[in-house]
């Protein structure tokens, strides 16, 4: 029986559950013996000119080995913006010098090295930093005016622009046109493990850097570049990683700084940030202001749709600058709309830099399209599910190119919607809703429907390729090296399953290694839901190739015709056809000569998982509090290799979507001061705010890889966010409410109801 498709429990877990995983701050590597602790001194002002940095008292504090300010940086050059088309003026200094500008609360001003961890916090407090405040630019609307320009040498806050305005007559043939400004708010990725790095230089002139990251190879290249080092001199290791969600893609400047500090001090250095540091220093996500316009006829046919995005890039533009291009690409969503327009403008602001967060550009596209469909449905008085069904792309098995330019691989959106509506008992939910509305209950029912498609395995700077190395050892165990970078996804188990399927070696005997640039010099890491369809496919390919290598060798050893040998899974080797147990094992072949395969799998194209979600909320219309009571989802990610783990990915994704829809938002005051910089202030979604989820199966294989697998890491978030938002709006729709921005907090719902009762449209 095939192991693929079965619920194999994780091989990672016994250690995780007894000794705990080993994260960067847990390391006891002997190279880190006697390490100093780095503590950064950060700007407490969002925008201003540094007038004084006085480290003299800190230098005298107990345990202080060194304090570095901008004057002490030697040849270090500011880090250029990470995208080639960005103005060089957006470069980020290592430490902001006297006379220079800080650009967000959390910008680096000085760094302290101490013998002990606590001494660092003490000494950092003693570094005197004076900053003359400048007006802060909070949000894209303020940035667009250029009344205050963050980087005078650039001359404008506009970082990039993509696309052109829609033609004036774009909606001319539509009976109904609805337009609305909506917000896809700034949120924190908030992995439970904050950022951490350690570095130690060897006598060979090489530095080993351990850090928590989603792709060692990419981080290695960046850090080497920033420090002016030959990448061969940088050995980068990612130990166990406590979650990433996109925010640990690419190196952070602090990681490189730790390596530089270790070189300066001549001693190893460790750094682990606090949560409050993380909530201002780590890349955040979303942060799009959108204008959606949808037009069509009263029979429910949508004829034209426009999505205009203003992207907040934060203080120093990073990868978030290009994510709106994914939003634009996916603007048409699951719909066969004749005319789709998308456009984006990106702005620098005095907030934390924006990067990828679970979905990264695609949730914003789906949220916009689904809001548009709901608004259109409300305007013409049609059921939201019916409007969607009327406009879906028809089921397809050959690639289909949308009006926004994406070429989808395979999909059946109507089937996904039908399945989820049936599982939810949609008709009965609507009936119950009608009864409550009729009675005028305080607790009203809201039903939100979303349909989505997303792009996974897109080129994120590494093409659509991934490599794998597979070696069987003479003792019958095997080792897999992968360029992917698991941080909770369970690759050690799933990659072992893929090798086991071909070789018959039990998963417990297969070790999967990742995240060490000396052993795995090339790799694309784990992001964009790429890992299984590229990295897993590479492991599958390596196993298939290893069988062929073994077959030739076995044929020679056994003096048999290679074609007469077949894989004998029960014996983990090859046997003459029809006589299992008579041949030779992989282990015996490996004892004879090293049995190893290195291979690269290249996908033909990205894949497009899809699905449909139904969210049910109960809203207390007097207090505005909405509670999610049910979440029913279809998430079609093609062939599933390990349902246990795939379901786990869906669960986590769904929950993060609920978090954004109902609770979470990074807020600044008018001076750019973060209002949500601890977990006491940031309403991270907890167990009490969620129901258990109802997952419905559907699997449409993709032709883009031999596994038939699409990505599953981000799909849950993409589907659940608009479903929950829609459900909250729906719960008070009968009171005249058409839209509530995320997060749909009690206050926002209460206000929307009050405004509607006063007669104004919202």
């Amino acid at each position, binding site marked *: 029986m095939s192991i693929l498709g079965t619920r194999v429990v994780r091989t990672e877990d016994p250690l995780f*559950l007894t000794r705990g995983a080993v994260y960067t701050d847990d390391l006891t590597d002997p190279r880190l013996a006697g390490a100093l602790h780095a503590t950064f001194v950060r700007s407490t002002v969002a925008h201003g000119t540094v007038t004084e940095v006085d480290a003299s008292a800190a230098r005298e504090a107990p345990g202080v080995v060194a304090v570095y300010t901008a004057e002490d940086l030697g040849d270090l050059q500011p880090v250029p913006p990470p995208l080639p088309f960005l103005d060089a003026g957006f470069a980020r200094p290592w430490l902001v010098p006297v006379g220079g500008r800080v650009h967000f609360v959390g910008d680096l001003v000085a760094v302290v090295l101490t013998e002990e961890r606590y001494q660092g916090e003490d000494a950092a407090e003693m570094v005197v930093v004076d900053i003359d405040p400048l007006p802060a630019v909070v949000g894209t609307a303020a940035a667009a005016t250029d009344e205050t320009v963050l980087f005078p040498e650039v001359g404008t806050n506009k970082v990039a622009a993509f696309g052109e305005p829609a033609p004036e007559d774009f909606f001319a043939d539509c009976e109904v046109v609805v337009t609305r400004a909506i917000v896809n708010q700034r949120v924190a990725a908030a992995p439970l493990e*904050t950022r951490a790095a350690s570095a130690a230089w060897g006598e060979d002139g090489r530095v080993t850097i351990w850090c928590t990251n989603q792709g060692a190879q990419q981080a290695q290249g960046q850090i080497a570049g920033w420090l002016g080092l030959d990448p061969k001199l940088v050995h980068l290791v990612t130990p166990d990683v406590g979650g990433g969600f996109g925010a640990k893609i690419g190196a952070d400047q602090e990681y490189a700084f730790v390596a530089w500090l270790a070189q300066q001090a001549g001693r190893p250095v460790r750094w682990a940030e606090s949560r409050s540091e993380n909530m201002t220093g780590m890349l955040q996500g979303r942060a799009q202001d959108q204008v959606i316009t949808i037009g069509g006829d009263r029979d429910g046919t949508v004829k034209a749709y426009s999505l205009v995005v203003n992207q907040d890039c934060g203080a120093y533009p990073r990868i978030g600058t290009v994510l709106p291009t994914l939003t634009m690409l996916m603007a048409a969503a699951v719909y066969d709309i004749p005319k789709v327009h998308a456009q984006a403008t990106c702005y620098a602001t005095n907030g934390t830099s924006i990067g990828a967060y679970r979905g990264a550009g695609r949730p914003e596209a789906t949220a916009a399209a689904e809001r548009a469909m709901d608004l259109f449905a409300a305007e013409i008085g049609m059921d939201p599910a019916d409007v969607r069904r009327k406009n879906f792309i028809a089921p397809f098995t050959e690639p289909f190119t949308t009006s926004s330019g994406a070429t989808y691989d395979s999909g059946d959106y109507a089937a996904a919607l039908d399945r989820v509506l049936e599982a939810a008992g949609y008709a009965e939910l609507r009936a119950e809703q009608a009864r409550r509305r009729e009675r005028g209950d305080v607790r009203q029912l809201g039903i939100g429907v979303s349909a989505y498609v997303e792009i996974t395995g897109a080129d994120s700077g590494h093409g659509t390729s991934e490599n794998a190395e597979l070696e069987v050892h003479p003792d019958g165990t095997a080792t897999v090296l992968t360029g992917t970078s698991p941080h909770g996804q369970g690759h050690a188990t799933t990659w072992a399953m893929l090798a086991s399927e071909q070789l018959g070696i039990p998963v417990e005997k297969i070790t999967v290694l990742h995240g060490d640039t000396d052993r795995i010099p090339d790799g694309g890491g784990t992001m964009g839901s790429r890992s299984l369809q590229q990295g897993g496919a590479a492991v599958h390919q390596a196993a298939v190739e290893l069988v062929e290598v073994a077959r030739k060798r076995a044929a020679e050893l056994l003096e048999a015709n290679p074609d007469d040998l077949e894989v004998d899974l029960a014996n983990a080797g090859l046997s003459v056809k029809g006589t299992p147990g008579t041949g030779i094992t992989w282990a015996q072949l490996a004892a004879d000569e090293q049995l190893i395969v290195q291979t690269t799998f290249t996908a033909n194209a990205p894949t497009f998982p899809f699905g449909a979600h139904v969210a049910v909320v109960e809203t207390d219309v007097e207090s505005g509090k909405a509670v999610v009571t049910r979440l029913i989802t279809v998430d079609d990610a093609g062939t599933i290799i390990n349902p246990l783990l795939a379901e786990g990915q869906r669960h986590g994704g769904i929950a993060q979507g609920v978090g954004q829809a109902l609770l979470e938002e990074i807020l600044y005051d008018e001076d750019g001061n973060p209002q949500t910089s601890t977990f006491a202030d940031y309403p*991270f979604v*907890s167990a009490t705010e969620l129901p258990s989820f109802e997952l419905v199966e559907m699997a449409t294989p993709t032709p883009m890889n031999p596994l038939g697998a699409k990505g599953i890491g981000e799909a849950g978030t993409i589907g659940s966010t608009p479903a929950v938002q829609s459900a909250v709006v729906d719960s008070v729709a009968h009171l005249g409410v058409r839209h509530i921005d995320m997060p749909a907090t009690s206050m926002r719902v209460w206000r929307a109801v009050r405004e509607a009762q006063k007669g104004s449209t919202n």
Partner: protein
Amino acid sequence: MQVSMTVNGQQRTDEVEPRTLLAHHLRDNLGLTATNIGCDSTSCGACTVMVDGLTVKSCTVLALQAEGSEVTTLEGLSTDGELHPVQAAFRSEHGLQCGFCTSGMVMAAVGVLADNPNPTDREVREGLEGNLCRCTGYHNIVQAVLKAAESGPAAGQVPSAKQEVTA
């Protein structure tokens, strides 16, 4: 100052700064790094350990406050290589992904089951409200706790102190 406590059945006496947090004492002085620190505000529960049979967030307790106490961390939960029922259920139900919340979550779950050996789905959620997880959406964590409850009172107990060893 000197602080003495029994940690996972072993008597430990160590010199600490008075302000040392129990979490840092466990991690930095005793090398018990399964206990993680995920926030500065007693919000996330990654640092949850048992002190004298009660779950506490060890980032908000001074090491000195545990003087004379019996402390159990994740490392002390399994006995003779056998997973504790809660550990076993977290594995079988896929109740962990990145693992960072897991140590605290498992300890908190033991505490929930000590108070309520047969909780409902909702009671488990309320019991774990102070423990945050970003990966699992809590679904499988709740399933794991319900599953562990099936194995009886042992799911709500920590191993008793082993023979004393002088550090």
